[in-house]
């Protein structure tokens, strides 16, 4: 009886060690979301279409959630900070499932973050040429006044609240062109 228990113990112990080793191989670093800080500059500096998910692991450790997107992509979701007792999503990355290449990202600023203001954020994208579009009809009885800023060449978009004019999210995708000019410009298609 004692022998059987001992065998069970060693099997379970071995299994635990094995699983932990595997986890370390996939996610060598684990950072708690309470202490994690995903900086805009870090997400901005990633080379979309060239960098891989290894860079994310280096920076922020294992994601809090992985979602299969269905188009051969995985979404790595990172959470941080607390509103009362709730953690909120801070960034999410689209990753090609086979190659591990970064295809895109979303970074969500806090309202206290200077980058939640469009003027401050725009200064980070020197040379960008943003086309601004209204989010428009979002249900059969409501038209949103939220705005979407998009520079396709750079693969950067902002979602801006129409009421508060604060940035709700910044999205990166694989840029069409990788070189940049010097000054940002903002042209609304309706006023051009």
């Amino acid at each position: 009886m004692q022998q059987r228990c001992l065998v069970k113990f060693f099997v379970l112990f071995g299994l635990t060690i094995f699983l932990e080793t595997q986890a370390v191989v996939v996610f060598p670093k684990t950072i708690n979301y309470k202490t994690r800080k995903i900086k805009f500059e870090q997400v901005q500096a990633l080379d979309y279409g060239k960098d891989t998910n290894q860079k994310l692991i280096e920076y922020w450790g294992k994601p809090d959630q992985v979602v299969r997107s269905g188009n051969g992509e995985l979404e790595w979701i990172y959470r941080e900070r607390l509103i009362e007792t709730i953690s909120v999503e801070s960034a999410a990355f689209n990753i090609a499932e086979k190659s591990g290449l970064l295809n895109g990202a979303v970074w969500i600023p806090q309202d206290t973050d200077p980058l939640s203001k469009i003027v401050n954020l725009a200064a980070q994208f020197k040379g960008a040429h943003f086309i601004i579009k209204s989010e428009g009809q979002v249900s059969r009885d409501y038209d949103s006044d939220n705005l979407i800023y998009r520079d396709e060449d750079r693969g950067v978009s902002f979602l801006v609240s129409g009421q508060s004019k604060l940035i709700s999210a910044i999205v990166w995708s694989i840029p069409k062109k990788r070189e940049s000019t010097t000054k940002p410009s903002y042209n609304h298609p309706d006023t051009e």
Partner: protein
Amino acid sequence: MAVKSCKCVLVSLFALGFCLQLLALAEPCQKGQHWVRAHYRKGYIRADGVNVSATSVVAHCQDNPPSNQNWQVKLATGLPHAWQQGGERTVEWTLEQKERVLDALSPLPQVLLNTAIEGIYRLKTSKIDVDNPAAGFNGQIAIYDPAFSTRQNLSRVMAHEIAHEMYRQFSFADRTEYLNVAGWRVKEAPSGLPVIVPRLDGYVDEECADSPTEDFAKNIEYYLFDPSKLKNVSPDISQWIHKKYGDKFKMGVAH
């Protein structure tokens, strides 16, 4: 002589008739009341869900709900500013419709009544969906013909439209909190644009998945008019609304 006295009688009668007309036009109501002229009123669903049958309303004085003062001035004419649905046509408010809208607003919770609305406009029908009772954009609400049909609870329609505006006016923190509790997330769409994607389930109505603002408006509507459904389907959201707006956030007597 006889002609002269006849003229005199005629003038007197005319003057008397004029005075009587003036008296009839004057609103004989006390302060805090308003005069309701005689009119035909179609059947409708009251805020509490009771079916009220059609009737000819006799002219009478009616107590003003306190909300009247704020809302009466918002019943606007013409097309809402920068209205997105091109080709929609305005119609005149009837007395009955104005009364109905003000009555429908009065039992709504104070939080809804305190929401800043720029104007309530009267349009014929929605270009998007002819059955739409109302629509909103940028602080303005359009009320369409179907809002006054016997199938619609106008209080519920108004609560829904005002809730859209509440969501628009949310602080950054409030919005983040709602998106978090309701399971909405921003994602990079295949086009590279930001897209807000819904949770997988837990909707009181399939239209909730359209957008966070529709989800919020529907959830507020159900919290007030069908709370058990919201509690069963989305208990977290029901709890969040209760925590945020408190015990007084419910349909009540006229405000």
